[in-house]
């Protein structure tokens, strides 16, 4: 369902390409919705003692996964770069 909504949106956006106004409105709606949902996520996190009590653990997990994601990306990108983009690097 979530993916159907995303694809419907992309198709609708593609069809509306020549009309910047509805597209601008949709982007503003997306921004406002994200603001609202992030505030609400903050609100329920703030009210959740088990998460608030585990902030250090949550932060450490985020740091580890973030470093892992970036390191992995850099590694594979360096291989791709050396193998396929060598001419572009000087």
């Amino acid at each position, binding site marked *: *369902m*979530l*993916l159907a*909504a*995303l694809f*419907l*949106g*992309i*198709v*609708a*956006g*593609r069809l*509306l*390409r020549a009309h910047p106004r*509805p*597209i601008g409105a*949709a*982007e503003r*709606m*997306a921004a406002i919705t994200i*603001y*609202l*949902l*992030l*505030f*609400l*996520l*903050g*609100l*329920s*996190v*703030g*009210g*959740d003692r088990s*998460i*608030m009590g585990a902030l250090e653990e*949550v*932060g450490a*997990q*985020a*740091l*580890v*996964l*973030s470093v*892992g*994601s*970036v390191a*992995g*990306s*850099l*590694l*594979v*990108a*360096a291989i*791709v*770069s*050396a193998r*396929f*983009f060598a001419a572009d*690097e000087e």
Partner: protein
Amino acid sequence: MKNSALLLLLFLAGVLAGSRGWLPADLPLVEDLAFYTLLLLLFFVGIGVGGDADTWRVVRQANVKIILVPAAVVVGTLAGAAAFSLLLPTVNVRESLAVGAGFGYYSLSSIVITELHGQQLGVVALLANVLRELMTLWLAPLFVRRLGRLAPIAAGGATAMDTTLPVISRFAGRDYAAVAVFSGVVLTILVPLLITLLLT
């Protein structure tokens, strides 16, 4: 999502309001609405991506080689997140992959993960993907010097199309900006797709 500072401030304002009890943390109406709000949000995000003339121009002009860039980011991120999840006894591989699949797009990934899996992992996704964006902003010059011009694009993930594009363009070169936008657009679309596939 360009307004990173505002997004984070709103999240922190929510945390403060919730922890001090200024506002009730569990508004029942909000819980019920969240899924439908998310549906609408993804629809609007799709319109933004599909309706952006630059997106289609960059995609049309792309040569076959350029697809290797977001592909490398997907493979590298997921492999890295899975490998590093072994350091975390309380986070399993599937959860780690979902957090990694945010590719730096922390607002959308944290919201989708919260809805599909739970709040705590949603917060991990928020922080991990914010850190990814910050690391790219801070370390882009180092990445270019040590690992080449594709490196900051890879580190930036989905943010390479907007928030980290200025530093990428500056340190990797203007001619790589189109590569960055292409990679960012592809990864942005993949964020809700991969997370949904991983968590359902």
